[in-house]
């Protein structure tokens, strides 16, 4: 288990306990925690509804693959800290990660 944190618009952080050994990606975990992520494409890095902004711990994440970069590039508000949570698999290295749900601001 690791702990990662979601920061809301008021700067408040909620801790999520996330298993690293169940084969879920971060998008699936956010949906399991009932965050309103559409996940239109089901995790193919195509729909960007799982768009997150990494506030802390970005350097510990594996690099984005080409598909993720392609999709992020089409978004009007993606920046250097943007990732698609469906492409991130929780691992021990991700413990302490802090991020914001950017996709919800695009609704």
């Amino acid at each position, binding site marked *: 288990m690791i702990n990662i944190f979601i920061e809301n618009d008021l700067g408040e952080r909620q801790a999520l306990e996330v298993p690293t050994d169940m084969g879920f990606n971060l998008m699936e975990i956010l949906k399991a925690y009932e965050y309103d992520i559409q996940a239109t494409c089901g995790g193919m890095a195509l729909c960007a509804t799982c768009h997150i902004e990494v506030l802390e711990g970005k350097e510990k994440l594996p690099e984005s693959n080409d598909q993720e970069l392609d999709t992020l590039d*089409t978004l*009007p508000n993606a920046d250097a800290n943007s990732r698609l949570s469906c492409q991130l698999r929780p691992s021990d290295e991700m413990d302490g990660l802090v991020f914001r749900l950017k996709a919800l601001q695009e609704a």
Partner: protein
Amino acid sequence: MINTDICIIGAGPVGLFAVFEAGLLKMRCHLIDALPVVGGQLAEIYPQKPIYDIPGAPAIIAEDLVNNLMKQIEEFKPGFTLGERVEALEKQADGSYIVRTNEGTDVHCQVVVIAAGLGSFEPRKPAVEQLEYFEGKGVHYMVKKPEQFRGRNVVLAGGGDSALDWTIFLADIASRVTLVHRGDTFRGAPDSAEKVYDLAGKGKIDLILQAQVNKLGGNGVLKEVSILGNDKSVTTIPTDDFIPLFGLSPKLGPIADWNLGVEKSAVIVDTFDYSTNVERIYAIGDINTYPGKLKLILCGFHEAAIMMQSAFKYVYPDQKLSFKYTTVNGVNPF
């Protein structure tokens, strides 16, 4: 006015297959979709991806599934209104409906089937000051009639294939084309990106990288755009039109206004026949919800078959429905 038996909102895989099930029962259909093409999420999001859970198809590329469905329903001669979004459903005195789109197309039908997936695909709007104010006054989210830009100054924004393709196309039509992109490279098709660099090198278009349009200005109509560089520099350039091309994302939209039971952006249905709480209106595919619902194409197919048996009574109120197998009866084209 278009007259039909069944108006299907959404021409994705489930809306398309519903035409087949209707056709077996000799009911005619007309489909309306906000996208300019059929196929719904398959066409817009993952046309090249293989799908593995369509019964009978161990692996099928999404756009091939759409093409197969179009072939399957061809003999039932469905009508299509594409590139228009359904805005309203108007119930008539005899219980039938007129379905109205945002472009004034009217479809009269006995039954309405909502097969709208996750909602209509709407353009993603960038955070640009005054963007909504200038909609219809210089801001366009899609290029429907390229000729309208002839001789005008056009600024496009975006970094994907859509932005690249339209920049190339309009370079020969508009008097000046400027493409603004946040990144320093393009991730779209290499051929298109190369063509854009080439046009910029020759001075046929202006290419502004590492910058974003952040403000629009004008007096009643669009006159200029403000561009903020990643280095915080600000440039203002005169323009007649601004076309932000940042892809599409689905929105429930007008469906929420039709007095249907809606839960988490999905329409509640009765699993007896996938009818909604409003008589003659059904919902099938990803757009509906019920206990145990799975958002799978194959589930939508099943829902379409059952739903059409129920719709029969509104199209042929004086006839008795008798269940027939295609192996016994064949398929009788219209």
